[in-house]
């Protein structure tokens, strides 16, 4: 990868196909141990790696990830309230190694779908029979004037859990007693749709005890958001929402909530109608598929189109794109969604290796938000594929939100089920 840049790499590779490559898989049927390379060690990548080995231990699985430990974004808002430590949401890859997955710490520069190779910045190449790509999201840094990678060292996004989460936590802890935290929410689609609103709740949970006069302001370009009714009800019960003394305030698109620029020196956000100054600012920028999806020619617009029967890329064969980076409409970009997509892809890859048709896919999403120590809410959905439209549709009459006006006992149970969801999801993907 030294002499040619990434784009050339792809161009050369694609050129080769057009020049006369034929794509076929009969060779795979004979291979004693087919090779799968997994790009990205998040929920989608880890789950796919584990389940490929679980379903067929003959498969050689190599997972390439830039960091040597995984820090989960789900439950990272709980670090902001002090309810959890960052260490409690950080996990090594030893569990996957025990399943026989080879872990490589390196950064993938591009995938060559023709020669079926993954190239890394470390200068290595990994051949594959099938490649799983689960790079998560990247930010559209250009969207908010004045906000960039460097400014983010001072004004965190905290949308990838890790040092950014700790930074935001420290800023909230050291802000003055009656201070204001401004959260800039992103436009749809973005990963973890209830995330910004759970974040506001968790910050309020901390402030209620330690800075009772603090304000949390959510500036949102959208007119509505995930679990909105339940959030508003919970905020009303816990944080005085809707009163003059409300700890949380939400300004939606119609109210001028779209933020256009940031002046980091004065910590001022310029929104459509007015400017807001805050002691702590958290900007969650608009999103698109992770970088490797772009360098590997897997995107159409911001996201990666896939055949939802298998999650194989619509742009290149033998490459499967999972999780947040894929266009998996109508599934949300969530950890649970990526986990069930990975199992569909793993089974489809194995079916292909065996010369069989893939089975019918099935998907689930379950997502919890914790609004207060004893106040949990959830959304659930069971999905089936509409093959005619290549759309993943929720099964009629199923799924939906926690009921409004549920008893305090039920809300409390949902907190402990949220913790179970977290632990089981982590264990299922990498334990």
């Amino acid at each position, binding site marked *: 990868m030294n002499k040619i840049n990434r784009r050339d790499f792809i161009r050369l590779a694609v050129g080769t196909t057009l020049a006369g490559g034929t794509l076929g898989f009969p060779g795979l049927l004979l291979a004693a141990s087919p090779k799968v390379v997994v790009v990205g060690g998040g929920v989608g990548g880890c789950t796919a790696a584990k389940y490929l080995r679980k379903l067929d231990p003959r498969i050689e699985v190599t997972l390439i990830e830039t960091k040597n430990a995984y820090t989960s974004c789900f439950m990272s808002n709980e670090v902001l309230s002090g309810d959890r430590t960052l260490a409690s949401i950080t996990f090594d890859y030893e569990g996957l190694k025990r399943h026989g997955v080879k872990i490589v710490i390196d950064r993938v520069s591009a995938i060559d779908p023709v020669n079926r190779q993954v190239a890394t910045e470390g200068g290595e190449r990994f051949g594959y029979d099938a490649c799983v790509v689960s790079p998560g999201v990247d930010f559209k840094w250009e969207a908010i004037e004045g906000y960039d990678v460097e400014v983010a060292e001072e004004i965190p996004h905290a949308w990838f859990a890790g040092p950014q989460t700790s930074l935001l936590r420290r800023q909230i802890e050291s802000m003055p007693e009656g201070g204001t935290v401004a959260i800039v929410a992103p436009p749809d689609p973005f990963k973890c749709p209830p995330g910004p609103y759970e974040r506001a709740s968790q910050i309020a949970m901390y402030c209620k005890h330690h800075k009772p006069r603090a304000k949390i302001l959510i500036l949102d370009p959208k007119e509505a958001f995930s679990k909105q009714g339940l959030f508003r009800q919970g905020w009303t019960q816990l944080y005085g929402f809707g009163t003059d003394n409300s700890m949380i305030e939400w300004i939606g698109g119609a109210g001028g909530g779209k933020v256009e620029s940031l002046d980091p020196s004065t910590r001022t956000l310029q929104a459509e109608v007015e400017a807001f100054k805050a002691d702590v600012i958290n900007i969650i920028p608009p999103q698109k598929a992770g970088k490797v999806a772009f360098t590997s020619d897997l995107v159409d617009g911001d996201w990666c189109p896939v055949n939802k029967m298998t999650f194989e890329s619509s742009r290149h064969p033998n490459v499967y794109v999972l999780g947040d980076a894929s266009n998996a409409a109508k599934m949300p970009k969530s950890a649970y969604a990526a986990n069930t997509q990975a199992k569909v892809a793993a089974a489809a890859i194995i079916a292909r290796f065996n010369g069989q048709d893939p089975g019918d896919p099935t998907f689930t999403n379950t997502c919890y938000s914790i609004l207060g120590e004893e106040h949990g809410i959830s959304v659930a959905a069971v999905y089936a594929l509409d093959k005619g439209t290549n759309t993943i549709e929720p099964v009629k009459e199923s799924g939906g939100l*926690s009921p409004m006006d549920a008893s305090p006992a039920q809300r409390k149970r949902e907190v402990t089920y949220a913790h179970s969801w977290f632990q089981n999801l982590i264990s299922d993907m990498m334990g």
Partner: protein
Amino acid sequence: MGAENMNRNETMSKKVRNLLLAMLVQVPAVVLADPTGQALAFTCAGCHGTDGSSVGPSSPSIAAMDPEVFIDAMQAYKRDERNSTIMNRIAKGYRDEQIKGMAWYFAKQKMAPAPQAFDPKLAEAGAKLHEKYCEKCHEKGGRPGDAGTLAGQWMPYLNFTMEDFMSGHRDYPRKMKRKVDAAVEAGGDEALRALLHYYASKQ
């Protein structure tokens, strides 16, 4: 008929019943596209653990469950007849034959008992209560069987379940109520806690 014969007969009839249930699953669903039981069961893992052994702290393990108990539970959730936070919403997403497919997948899995703290003294008292009042239905110390799994199940979950039975939020079988009442009369206020600690001790 001696006790041994009776046991054998029960085992036989159970085998026949299981065979019938298994055959029902294998009848192909006419034209509806259908994921396999395994594919459906895989989607449960994010809350109930890989292959149904939950790592806690409160969502229950469903591995090794008797298929009939599994089907009854899912159907009760589907009809909103059993108190739940989320399972009623999820159960409604599956057709009867899909539920059977999942039931059979989980029936074949081994349950890894939950590693959890318990009070040995309470567990000892619970063991005695269990033997006298519960063992007849929840056989082998409450291991997975014809009645719900108790041994090695997560304690908070069993606690929620008992709260639901006793507060009228879950259909409370008359026989069970009689036995629980008797256990509480014999063991006092600590009786239920003792039972839960006994089940937690089965690791």
